[in-house]
C-alpha cells in the first residue's frame, strides 16, 4: 500500500534512490542538487542501503566513474546541476555511445553567466543532443515517479541508453509537497535486479567497451544509437503503463490539460506547467477555450505526437525556459515548429522565452500570452517571435 509523506523534490529523489538501492553512486556537490548525494550518504551511513558511494573530485570524474561502474556491471547513477552538467559534457556523449543504461538526477539550474544559482533549463537543454533520454517533471510527485521508472526504461534491451530525470531547481527541489510513496517491496519488484548481458567484470567472457572506431564504423554506430533512442519512446510508454497499474498515476510523452476543444494551447516544460494550468482554469471560467500541453519526455522528442495534439487549435504558445543564442528562438520553439511543418500543421506558432535564471512566471503572464494569441488570430495583429516574458523595458 502506498503511503503519504511530505517531501522536497530532492528528498523524493533521494528516497527513490534508497528504495532502488543501486550499486554505485559517484557524486560531487553543486547547488541545488547537493542534497541528493548528501541524503543518500546519510542513508548509507545509517545502514538503510548499501550503495557504494564515491566522493569524487569533480563532475568530470563523477560521470566518468558512473560510466566505469556501469561498464563493469554495476547499476550506477549520479546527480548534478548547471555547471556540473557542463563539466560532464564529454562523458555524457560517451555514456550514450557506449550504450550505458546509467541514470542522472538533474536539478535544473541556469548556466553562467551572469553567474546565478536559480532555475532555468539551460543546463538540461545544453545537453539535449548528447544521446540521453530526458524526462522532465512538474512536481515533487512526478520527479519521484519518473525516477522509479528510469532504470526499467534505460535497461530495456531495446534501449540500453542513459537517462536523465530532471526537475526544476529550488522550485521543486527545495519546496515541500505532500506526495505518495510506494512501498520498498513494490519498488524492488518494479525496478528488478540489474542483470547485464555483457559487462567487464565477467571472467571468461572478455569484452572491450568504447574501442576506437575508424570512419568505416562510426557512422553505422551512430545510426544504431539513434534507432535505440527512437525505440525508447515505446518503452517509455510501456513502463508508464505498468507504473500506472502499480501507482494509479498516469504518465505519457506529454500531458494534455483541457486541450480537447482548445483554440489556444500553451506547450511548456516543468514546474511552470502548474502556473499555466491554474491560468487555464481561470480563463475557462470566463469561457475561453484554452489548454496546456506539458511536455514530459523531451528526448526522444515526440514531434509527430505533438503535431497531432496541436493540429486542431488555432495558435500555440511554445514556452522555452532557456535562451539558445541562435537568433531563432529556443530549442522547444525550433523543434515543435519543425514538427508542425513536417506534419503540414500550419497553425500560428509563437515562441516565448520565460523564467530565465529564476525569474518569476505568473498566472498573469499566462493570461497575457493567451490574450496575445487570441488578438493575433481574431484581429490579425502581428506577434513578435521569441519574445521575453517579464522583461523590464
Amino acid at each position: 500500500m502506498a503511503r503519504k509523506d511530505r517531501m522536497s523534490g530532492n528528498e523524493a529523489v533521494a528516497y527513490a534512490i534508497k528504495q532502488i538501492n543501486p550499486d554505485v553512486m559517484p557524486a560531487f556537490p553543486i547547488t541545488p542538487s547537493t542534497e541528493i548525494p548528501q541524503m543518500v550518504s546519510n542513508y548509507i551511513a545509517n545502514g538503510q542501503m548499501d550503495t557504494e558511494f564515491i566522493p569524487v573530485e569533480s563532475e568530470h570524474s563523477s560521470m566518468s566513474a558512473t560510466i566505469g561502474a556501469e561498464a563493469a556491471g554495476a547499476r550506477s547513477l549520479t546527480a548534478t546541476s548547471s555547471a556540473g552538467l557542463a563539466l560532464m559534457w564529454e562523458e555524457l556523449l560517451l555514456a550514450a555511445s557506449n550504450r550505458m543504461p546509467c541514470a542522472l538526477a538533474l536539478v535544473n539550474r541556469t548556466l553562467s553567466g551572469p553567474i546565478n544559482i536559480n532555475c532555468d533549463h539551460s543546463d538540461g537543454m545544453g545537453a539535449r543532443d548528447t544521446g540521453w533520454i530526458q524526462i522532465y517533471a512538474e512536481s515533487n510527485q512526478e520527479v519521484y515517479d519518473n525516477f522509479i521508472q528510469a532504470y526499467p526504461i534505460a535497461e530495456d534491451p531495446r534501449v540500453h541508453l542513459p537517462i536523465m530525470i530532471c526537475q526544476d531547481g529550488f522550485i521543486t527541489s527545495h519546496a515541500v509537497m505532500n506526495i505518495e510513496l510506494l512501498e520498498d517491496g513494490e519498488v524492488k519488484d518494479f525496478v528488478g535486479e540489474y542483470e547485464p548481458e555483457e559487462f567487464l567484470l565477467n571472467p571468461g567472457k572478455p569484452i572491450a567497451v568504447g574501442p576506437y572506431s575508424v570512419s568505416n564504423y562510426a557512422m553505422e554506430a551512430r545510426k544504431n544509437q539513434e534507432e535505440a533512442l527512437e525505440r525508447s519512446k515505446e518503452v517509455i510508454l510501456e513502463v508508464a503503463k505498468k507504473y500506472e497499474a502499480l501507482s494509479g498515476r498516469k504518465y505519457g510523452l506529454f500531458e494534455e490539460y483541457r486541450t480537447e476543444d482548445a483554440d489556444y494551447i500553451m506547450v511548456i516544460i516543468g514546474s511552470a506547467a502548474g502556473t499555466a494550468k491554474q491560468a487555464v482554469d481561470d480563463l475557462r471560467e470566463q469561457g475561453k477555450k484554452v489548454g496546456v500541453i506539458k511536455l514530459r519526455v523531451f528526448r526522444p522528442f515526440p514531434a509527430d505526437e505533438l503535431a497531432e495534439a496541436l493540429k486542431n487549435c488555432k495558435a500555440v504558445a511554445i514556452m522555452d525556459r532557456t535562451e539558445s543564442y541562435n537568433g531563432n528562438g529556443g530549442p522547444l520553439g525550433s523543434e515543435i515548429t519543425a514538427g508542425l511543418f513536417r506534419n503540414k500543421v500550419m497553425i500560428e506558432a509563437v515562441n516565448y522565452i520565460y523564467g530565465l535564471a529564476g525569474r518569476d512566471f505568473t498566472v498573469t503572464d499566462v493570461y497575457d500570452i493567451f490574450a496575445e494569441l487570441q488578438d493575433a488570430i481574431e484581429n490579425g495583429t502581428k506577434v513578435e517571435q521569441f519574445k521575453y516574458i517579464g522583461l523590464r523595458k
Partner: protein
Amino acid sequence: MGEICYKKRIYYKGKEKRENMRTDVHKINEQTPHQDLTEGLMMFAAGTSKEFNTGEWRTNTPVFIADLCKQCMLCAPVCPDSCIPVEDGKRGEFDLDHCKGCGICAKVCPFDAIVMKEGR
C-alpha cells in the same frame, strides 16, 4: 575467441528477432551493414589488438645486432608495444608487425646492440 554465447533481443531492419548479443566479431568487417554491428561497437573478444598491424605506421626501424647483445634484458620491458619477444631468458628478433619504431629500445641499450635505421 568471440564464440557465440547467450541470447538477447536485437532489431533487424525494424523487425524484432531473437539473436545473440555476443556475436563473432571476426565476422564483422568494413562491409557489414549497421544492423549487424555490435551494440556500442562493443568487442566480444580479447587480445584483438594483435590483429592491428601498427608496424605499418613505422618510419624508423630498429635493427638488432645479436653479436653485441649481452642479454641484459633492459630493452624488452621498456618496449611500449611488447615487440621484443623473450624466450628462455633470451630476447629474439623484433616483432616488426607491431613495432612503431619509437627508438626507446635503442636508447636504453648500453651495448649499441640496437641501432635505428631510417625507413621501414
